[in-house]
């Protein structure tokens, strides 16, 4: 009889072990289209995305019509988040450096490390990737955002669950996650120990960053207020050691005990006006435009689009403002744009500038000599689309 039980146990044990999580390592066969693009001062377009465990860098000298052969940013393959609100990022340093960041899934669900590599030879070679945060707990550090300030310092921000984990361990309530930031003052050779910017942020929404006229970095992110009110906060990441303070900047009052998977967009004009886009679904899904006035409701708030509209981006050049988004319907996606010629006081009607029946990533606005283009990574290939009406 004991032998029978031993055999039965041996049958059960592998089944039990199979339920130990390694979800993060499982590769999805679905296309992962998360990508970022940037245009440098010479008009060269740079594109990063992920394939087979590598962040790939490609460039184009004909505004996206043809792309170069890829350079592998990380020589050794590793898991990479490259879908939804997570995508590899690219930014330029003051001396022509190329900076690339991404989030790396770890073994357990919802965990990740923020990774960074740099090239000082125009993208021909990259440094070995480093992990930006000093904390190495196997928890959430992901949804990385990156920007370079006026002094050339690299600001990184991400969603981090260390405070949630600490609260859980003590049996104390803690909604959401936290936003942590770190700065590199040596062109990406190293990053300073991270600092907490805000408690109780949303767990799954990208962080928007833009440079202020003073050369500091403004960060705009979805936070949690009260009982799961998913509004947004704005903070300036000061360069002079002053404490960073996040202030509530939207007042939509959307209550959600869940994951919106829908972060905001930010563009700061040379006059300091903080043009922003964000999503909420208190009554129905709505994409909003507004000018942030931290501590107060945004000015010139306008419902830019309704149901089916998602993942907006925003850009500003002097008095011109552009908002783009994905509009999904029964037959696929339309890439939509609305623009303003008077600094965001009025916007023209929505126009479709591209469409596809296949999968798409979030659109990204890029400026070049006063013109706005949209980087749109689709299952049919990468496209750079002008915003002008034909």
């Amino acid at each position: 009889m004991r032998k029978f039980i031993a055999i039965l146990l041996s049958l059960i044990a592998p089944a039990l072990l199979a339920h130990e999580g390694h979800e993060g390592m499982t590769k999805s066969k679905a296309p992962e289209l998360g990508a970022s693009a940037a245009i440098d001062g010479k008009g060269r377009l740079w594109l990063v995305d992920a394939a087979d465990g590598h962040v790939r860098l490609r460039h184009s000298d004909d505004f996206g019509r043809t792309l170069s052969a890829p350079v592998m940013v990380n020589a050794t393959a590793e898991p990479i988040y490259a879908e939804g609100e997570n995508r590899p990022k690219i930014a330029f340093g003051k001396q022509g450096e190329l900076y690339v960041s991404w989030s790396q899934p770890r073994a357990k669900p919802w965990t990740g490390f923020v990774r960074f590599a740099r090239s000082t030879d125009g993208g021909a070679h990259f440094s070995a990737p480093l992990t930006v945060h000093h904390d190495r707990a196997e928890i959430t550090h992901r949804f990385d955002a990156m920007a370079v300030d006026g002094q050339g310092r690299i600001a990184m921000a991400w969603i981090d669950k260390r405070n949630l984990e600490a609260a859980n361990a003590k049996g104390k309530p803690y909604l959401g996650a936290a936003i942590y930031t770190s700065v590199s003052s040596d062109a990406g050779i190293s990053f300073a120990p991270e600092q907490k910017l805000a408690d109780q942020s949303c767990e799954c929404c990208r962080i928007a960053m833009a440079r202020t006229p003073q050369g500091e970095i403004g960060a705009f992110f979805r936070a949690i207020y009260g009982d799961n009110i998913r509004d947004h906060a704005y903070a300036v990441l000061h360069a002079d050691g002053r404490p960073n303070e996040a202030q509530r900047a939207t007042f939509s009052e959307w209550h959600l005990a869940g994951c919106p998977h829908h972060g905001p967009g930010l563009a700061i004009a040379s006059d300091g006006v903080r043009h922003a886009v964000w999503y909420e679904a208190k009554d129905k899904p709505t994409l909003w435009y507004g000018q942030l006035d931290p501590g107060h409701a945004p000015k010139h708030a306008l419902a830019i689009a309704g149901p089916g509209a998602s993942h907006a981006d925003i850009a500003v050049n002097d008095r011109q403002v552009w908002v783009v988004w994905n509009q999904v319907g029964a037959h696929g996606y339309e890439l939509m744009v609305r623009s303003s010629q008077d600094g965001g006081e009025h916007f023209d009607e929505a126009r479709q500038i591209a469409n596809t029946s296949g999968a798409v990533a979030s659109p990204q606005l890029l400026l070049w000599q006063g013109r706005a283009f949209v980087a749109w990574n689709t299952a049919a290939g990468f496209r750079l689309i002008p915003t002008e009406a034909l």
Partner: protein
Amino acid sequence: MKRILFLLVLTLPVLAQAASPTALRAEDIATLLKPPSHGVRVLAIWALDCAYCESNLQALAKLQQAHPQQLELVTIATDSIDQREVIAKRLHAAGMDAWPARAYADATPERINYLIDPNWGGETPRTLIIRADGSHLGMSGELTPSKLKSIL
């Protein structure tokens, strides 16, 4: 001893039968949205990357067990059916093996979201309630006890 053996034998099929999700394609949605002949059908939409979803599934499962005749429960993962093993593991770990499970099978998941409910922006968990009279009610986020009560 015999009792232990009996219990172990009973346990075996449960372990072997983690609910493997079946594909949900665009053309399958009309059937899911069709009003049930009586009571309510609840579509419990969740995602692997959603820390609120498993407890919501469990709350709906408990409600279904309390009202087996009036409530039909279907779980739908917005993740690709290509991740069926991971989805099945997660459902099993949450004790959700007993309910029919679906997962998206479409290159454009946001289109499936739109076809299921055009007034849903993809946030999870999402609960869609379809009543015999043809009415639909969508609720986003983990359901509060009062919202759970309102289903029946």
